[in-house]
Structure formats: C-alpha cells, structure tokens
C-alpha cells in the first residue's frame, strides 16, 4: 500500500506539468539554485492539498455509503475523468512573477485538474481511512477516527514526500547539468500516460468491486 502511494508520488513527480519544470524556470529566471528548491516546497504543498481533498472525500463518503457502492462509484469516476482528460484543454495563465501562495494555488489546480488525487483511489480504497459505514455502532468510534486521521495524514505525507523527492532530483539535475534541451525529445506525452493510468486504475477498482 505505502509503496504504491510512494510509487504514484514518484510518477507524479516526474511529470513536468506537476511543477519541477516551473521550479527550474523560476531558478533560471532568478539565476538561483535556491529558488529552484524553495519553489518546490509550495508546489509540493499544493499537490498535497489536492490529494488530501480526495482522501478526505473518501473518508467522508465511507461513513455514509456502502463500500461496494463507493468502490464502483470511484471506479466509474476514474474512467470518466480519464476520458475527460483526453479532451480537456484548460490552460491557466499564472505568469513567472509568483510568490509561494501563487505556486501553491497553481500546483493545487494542476494536480486537481490532472486527477492526481483520483489516481490514488484504488490504493486508498484498501486503506483504513474513514469510519466504515457498517461499524458505526460501537465503542471504537473515537479510536477509529483518530487512527483513520493518522493513516490519512501518513498517506498524504508518503505520497507527497515521494513526489517532492523525485521532482527535486529532476529539477536540480536539469538546472545544474542536463539543461532544458532534452525536453525537446524527452518530454513524452505524459498526459496520455495519465489518461491510461486513470482509466487503468478505474478498471482495476471495478474488477475488485465486482469480484
């Protein structure tokens, strides 16, 4: 589970659209390696917020919706969102004169619009997050809420840490040694890969739900 969350974090970190490229650009604009690193922090925070939103939603829905229904719902959401991503053409203009708040908001919007949090759904479904619909009744509610919150926070932390680490390594490597020329060939269409990942995640979830 945790490994899967970290792996998806790394996968998100690789994507230039999730922020490392923005960090490199700001470093180049300000001629400062520190600017590369500092920019990544609010970018990671924005990403974490977007993921936390989905985790919270999962936790909340679990309290009211039967888990099988939730699972099918999540699967269909993923597939629908993947298809929508095929057609989506929203472009946010932010600009290059940005502060930490701008970067965080930008990263939150990018992660949300790309469905970064949604991609985690199959993993989240298998984790003890939220209070399950059918065990409401008894004594363990308080403990369950506590441990569920800890698990949820840990999930966000593991995912974001992996994303930040990978994005950080790529950003510094590109800023210091590789240069941007490699983007001309190396920037494969990750949006398409994401569509496949989203639809694939939905399909896996659907199979498990129906099993």
């Amino acid at each position, binding site marked *: 589970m945790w490994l899967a969350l970290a792996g998806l974090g790394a996968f998100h970190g690789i994507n*230039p*659209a999730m922020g490392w*490229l*923005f960090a*490199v*650009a*700001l470093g*180049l*604009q300000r*001629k400062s390696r520190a600017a590369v690193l500092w920019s990544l922090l609010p970018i990671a925070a924005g990403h974490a917020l977007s993921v936390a939103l989905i985790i919270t939603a999962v936790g909340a829905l679990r309290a009211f919706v039967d888990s099988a229904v939730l699972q099918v719902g999540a699967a269909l959401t993923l597939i629908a969102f993947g298809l929508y991503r095929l057609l989506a*053409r929203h*472009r*946010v*203009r*932010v*600009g*290059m*004169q940005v502060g930490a708040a701008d970067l965080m908001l*930008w990263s939150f919007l990018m992660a949300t619009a790309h469905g970064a949090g949604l991609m985690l759904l199959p993993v989240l479904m298998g984790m003890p997050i939220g209070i399950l619909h059918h065990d409401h009744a008894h004594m363990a509610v308080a403990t369950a809420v506590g441990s569920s919150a800890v698990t949820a926070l840990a999930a966000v932390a593991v995912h974001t840490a992996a994303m930040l680490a990978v994005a950080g390594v790529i950003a510094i490597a590109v800023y210091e040694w590789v240069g*941007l*020329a490699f*983007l*001309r*060939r190396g*920037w*494969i*269409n990750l*949006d*398409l890969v994401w569509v496949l990942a989203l639809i694939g995640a939905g399909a896996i979830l659907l199979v498990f739900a129906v099993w």
Partner: protein
Amino acid sequence: MATWKPDPTFYPSARMAMQAKPEKLAYVAILHVAGDKPDALGVVDLDPSSSSYGKLIGRTPMPNAGDELHHFGWNACSTALCPYAPHPHVERRYLIVPGLRSSRIHVLDTKPDPRAPKIVKVIEPAEVHKRAEYSRPHTLHCGPEGIYVSALGAPNGEGPGGIFMLDHDAFDVLGRWEVERGPQYLAYDFAWHLGHDIQITSEWGTPNMIENGLLPELLLNSKYGHQLHVWDLRRRKHLQAIDLGAEQQLILELRQARDPTKTYGFVGVVISLKDLSASVWLWHRPNGQWAVKKVIEIPAEPAEAEQLPPLLQGFKAVPPLIADINLSLDDRFLYVSCWGTGEMRQYDVSDPHNPKLTGSVRLGGIVKRSPHPAAGPVNGGPQMVEVSRDGRRVYFTNGLYRAWDGQFYPAGIKGWMVKCDVEPNGGLKLDPNFFLPAEEGYRTHQIRLEGGDSSSDTFCYP
C-alpha cells in the same frame, strides 16, 4: 490530435532555437492592389539546392476579395513549453491569417502539404465584431495559453484598439483581452517579457485615421500614435504609458529581448515632425519604472522637390520612414527597414544602449531606386523584414500599407521579396540569385518562415 513528443520546432530558449536547421520554405502575404480579386498566401522555395529556389511554388487564394492580408502567425510555438501552462504536444501547423481591412480571419493548415496550405476555417468579421468588439486584426502571436491578436479599432472604425484572444485548439474568438485599459486608445503591435509578466503595446491610428491614406492634418497635429503602453500580462491591466514626445509619430514595431530574463526591447518610430528623421528607441526598466530613450536616429536625406511625391515636396527631403525592425534570436543584431530612403540597416545591439551600425544594403527608395543585381532599379523600399532562426539570412518585402503606398510611391509599388546573407560578425549583402517579383497587380507583405523565425516565437527560458 496530441503528439507523443513535442513539436521539434519548439525550443525552450531562443539560444537553442538558433541551432535549428535552415528553413526551406517561406510563407508570404500577397495582396491584390485593386482589391477586387482575392488575396493569397504564397509559398516561396528557400532551398538553395532546389531548381525553384527563390520562386513562388505555392499559392492559396482566400475565399473573398478585399481582405488585405497583412500580418499573420502560427497557431502554436515555443510558448507551448512555458512551465505554468505546458502543452508541448500540439503542432506548429496552422497559419492564422487575418484580413486587415475585412477583419476576416483565415486558418490555413500547412500539414498535409507544406507547399500547398489549405484553408480549414474562416472566422467571419461579424464573429470578431460580436465576440471581441474589435475589428481590423493586425499582429498575431502564439501565447502560453492562447493566440493573441491585436486590433486597430472598434467595428465602427473608431477606437479603442486593443487585443483579443483566440483559443489554441478550435480557433474560436474568446473575447477582448484587456481588463483595465487605462488611458490606452490607439493600438498596433505588442510584445512580451514573459519572465516578467509584462506586455508592451504600441500605437498607430484607428481605422478611420488610416484607411483613407495618411492624413497630413492629423500627422502635423501629432494625432497618430506617440506612446508605448506597459501592461501587467497576468492581470491584464494597464500599468504605465510612456510618451516618446508628440513630434514622434507612428510608433510601430516592437522587438523585445529574446531572453525572457531581460527587460528591454526596441521600437521603431516612423517619423519625427521636427526634422523628418526616423528613430529606434530602447525601452528598459532602469529603477523599477519603465522608460525609453532614443538609441538610433536616421536623418532625412536631402532631395529635389521634383524627385518627391506631392506629400513631401515642400520638405525637400526624403524621410527614412522606419517601417519595420527585427531582432536576431541571440539579441545581437537589429535590422532596421528604411522604407523611404530604401535602405536595410543592421546594427550590433549587444550593448542595447549603444547600437553600432554594422551593415547596410540599399534597395529601392523614393529617390534613389537602388537596383537589385537580378532586376535593376526597383521601387518601394525594404519593409517587412524577417530573420532566420540561425540569424544568417534576412528576407524582406517592399509594401507598407495599400492606402499609404501611393502617397510615397505615386507611380505604384511593384511588389518584391528579396534575401540578404549575414556575415557571422556583422555585415549584410544581397543574394544576387534571390529576387521574387510579385505577380502583376499584387504586392507582398509579411513573411513567415517554415518552423519559425526570429519574431514568431516567444520563449519562457533564458
């Protein structure tokens, strides 16, 4: 459809774009002088090893007459790599070709056959008028999140002029760009400092001030544009107006430093009412505020009254009339078109505050009619100038604006397109094998090069 890898003509920086292979094709706006036959987009062979080198090898007529093709541009360019709105898997494929007089916008697909672009969409003038409340679309640039088009005025021919946007994909008119216009009223060109979220715009005149010719009473009363405007590109807000002085008239082409970390650029001024000189000004940001200073002044050349058109006879001098400028991708050479005197100048602007004249080619001109090796004396003068990405070749045409051409060249301009070769450390000479005359009854205007040129792309990385 999205591609798997970025379009190979997109470059993160201008420096990298200079490594591009030499262009093999040019696209050129061809306009019918009388206006009763359709204009066309021409395709010119630029491959020196080809038997049709320097010849028109393709021609796509527009669906209507009287559009007056003028400037045009690509649907997508290196701004697709900008970090905050990345979408590098689109193609530089469509040429967006507005009619300056008709306000009709054509979309031409160069993909299946770059030598025979096909019209795939036409945006009718009413659509532009309704959605943007602008008309007379002029300059066009591919921006990070859409296509920006400047417009000279409102549908009724008055001001204000401004900028409207087209979306990248369907080429729908999205509406006007400005949120807070401030005192800006006249419009012409625009340029971006993407690293600083700054847009600069310049001033010509409203459609009613220009479409019936240059009006001497407006000119002599300094009614044409004489200001630059600085905008917050992100918030779409006017920040500052910079007056070059009322005697400076017609503030046209803007060429910002290609390096997005820099905060300077050059603007050409057509004429000074004081002495008919033309000038290039540097805009820069010395201490937080934007400012301008004149860095190049080209004086008028004395002439006999009988050599001059009626408009100029009283002055006994031929004005240089800087009608276009262009800057190489390494920010090193500035090209200055003197349409009146018939001269293309090259300046080394490595130190933008102190340009040094490094090259000059004489061709045409109101008085001199300097010859081309392949054609003898020609008329018109160097005007729309485009520089190859590697900076080694410069192409230019000789028509300014149909309604004004005859006031300066009463015999009627015979259209042409020529090429100069550039020495790596400065110096300019005409290619004797490249002289493309326009077809009878037609004139040429802006040139765009296949894969991009020095004014088609804006870059997000230094």
